[in-house]
């Protein structure tokens, strides 16, 4: 791995954060529609870290029992987008989305499907915004639900690199005292591709 790839210039760091921020802000607006109440966002963080560090960042403030809806994306750069929250809040989230009048059995029955669909709407809003900003087409896989600690969520695919670009934004839903985050994970070849695309984007903006 070359040093140039692993390091972002301050402007690239800023550009990655701003583009992710637009994506996640749109995603939060979709989540707000589904929940019927406001979703608060933190400012975005951008790091190039190993997977273990990413896992620790994910567990900070949420504990190690996590549930995530993840969706792969592929295009000029590829990676995964994840909607992550503490496992203990999964049923509560599902219940707030499908409405409070369902029995616990129904909520448990619907949990998997509701999580996948919620993740699908939110992550698509995020990724589609990023694709539009960069004027690139991205294909998105179907959502899958994973449970486990940070290391399980961020495990490398076979042959996958350990170093990843990790972009994340915390969200809080006040009334339900719910907390989670939206993360984007990309490996080194994608970081290099994304750097080029962002540099082109910056050049166009400077004209």
């Amino acid at each position, binding site marked *: 791995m070359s040093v140039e790839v692993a390091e972002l210039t301050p402007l690239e760091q*800023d550009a990655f954060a701003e583009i992710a*921020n637009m994506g996640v802000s749109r995603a939060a*607006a979709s989540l707000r529609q589904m929940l019927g109440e*406001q979703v608060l966002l933190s*400012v975005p963080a951008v790091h190039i870290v190993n997977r273990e560090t990413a896992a620790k960042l994910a567990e900070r403030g949420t504990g190690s029992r996590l549930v995530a809806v993840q969706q792969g994306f592929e295009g000029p750069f590829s990676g995964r987008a994840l909607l992550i929250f503490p496992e203990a809040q999964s049923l509560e989230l599902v219940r707030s989305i499908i409405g409070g009048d369902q029995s616990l059995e129904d909520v448990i029955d619907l949990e998997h499907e509701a999580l996948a669909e919620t993740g699908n709407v939110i992550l698509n809003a995020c990724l589609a915004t990023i694709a539009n900003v960069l004027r690139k087409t991205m294909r998105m896989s179907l959502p899958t639900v994973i449970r486990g600690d940070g290391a399980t969520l961020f495990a490398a695919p076979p042959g996958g690199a350990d170093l990843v670009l990790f972009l994340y934004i915390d969200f809080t839903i006040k009334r339900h005292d719910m907390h989670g985050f939206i993360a984007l994970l990309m490996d080194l070849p994608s970081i290099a591709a994304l750097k080029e695309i962002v540099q082109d984007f910056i050049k*166009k*903006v400077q*004209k």
Partner: protein
Amino acid sequence: MNYTVLVVDDSRLARMVMASAFRRLRPEWTLVEAIGADEALGAIASDPIDIALIDFNMPGLDGLELVARIRERAPEMPIALVSANLQDEIIARARELKAAFIAKPLTDEALGAFLSGASLRLRKAKQ
């Protein structure tokens, strides 16, 4: 009439995108950039600012808190909150503070429409 516009965004890229749109739409206007609420309030205290464009999600005071602070000094200044966060509460709060809302990703159409409305209001206020 040329105006001075304050652009507040913690992201340099976002300020560059805004400056680029101004070069196409209102190249003769003056832009003053601020990276956050403190700089923005400083600029308003020292420069004759006519219009403000303010990002929502910033470290420190957020965009709405900043608009509220600006309103104490400049109750009639045309202001737009600029954000991809299209949540009802945020748009409603902007409206309460008499600020417009412009969605990110920024388009020339949305910015142009706001600037036309803003110049009209500023001209009327002068009469």
